[in-house]
């Protein structure tokens, strides 16, 4: 499956954070690369959403939706916004 980018999850991020996030900067906790959320690599395999660093490929964010509840893992981020 081919990657999308962070623009594609603008709606999901508003659901989670309550505000537009795609123009915000993200910092990778693994390699320190910093870029707008819109430029991150996004995979949406159906079960959830995986967001990876465009520099080192580390997983930055994972979102899983189940019965209207969104589980959020931001473990791979050093900073957001």
């Amino acid at each position, binding site marked *: 499956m081919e990657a999308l*980018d962070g*623009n*594609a999850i603008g709606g999901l991020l508003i659901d989670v954070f309550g*505000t*537009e996030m795609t123009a915000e900067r993200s910092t990778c906790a693994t390699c320190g690369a910093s870029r707008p959320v819109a430029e991150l690599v996004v995979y949406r395999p159906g079960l959830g959403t995986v967001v990876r660093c465009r520099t080192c490929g580390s997983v930055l964010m994972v979102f899983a939706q189940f019965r209207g509840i969104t589980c959020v893992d931001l473990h791979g981020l050093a900073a957001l916004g």
Partner: protein
Amino acid sequence: MAGTAVRRRLTWQLGTVGSLTDETAMVRTIALDVPGWPGHRAGQHLDVRLTAEDGYRAERSYSIASAPGEPVAITVERLDDGEVSPYLTKELMATDELELRGPIGGYFVWDPTDCRPLMLLAGGSGIVPLRAILRHRERTGSAVPVRLLYSSRSWEDVIYRDELDALGDGVQVIHALTRRQPPGWTGYARRVDAQMLTEVAWPADQAPLAYACGPTSFVETVAGGLVGLGYPPQRVKTERFGATGDR
């Protein structure tokens, strides 16, 4: 635009389908009447949700094709194995209702107060948000010079062809036709590559602002190419819709 700056929840709502316009054999523009639409910025998108009788839901994002201040419209390319686009491009009729939410996105947007020359790069239906930018530029009387490099499979696949032909002064449109060209075609007849960008893109020393939208592979090629020409990465805004991208 003031409306979009306010923090608000993004809620699903119903829009009513207005006019339907076939842009090409595979692409249709759907005008929507959305009560309480807060206004959008050029380049934003909206999410569409279809619910089947058994409750199964499919959700897709579509770029907004209209300029801020114009009625909301999306332009949808039909993917025959898609879950959503065949319905939107073949079955949907005027006065039908469509569940949507938006506007969405604060990155791939253009503001007419920006004076930098615009370098727009579209692959296929990646033209849609760039058309909103071009219309916004016209409507606001912006004088920023624009070059649009637009890659399509064939002349028949060029979306908004007449509108792009009719663009006024200050906008240069350069087509690349990758698979099939009309007789006597003298333009580019290949995929966008680094050489083409060298010939077409504003020189980096003019401090241009670039927007690239299309399939992921197209965007990777052009974004990498522009950075290679000296464009700072932060001045190359990108939006990728995957290989099949229902968008």
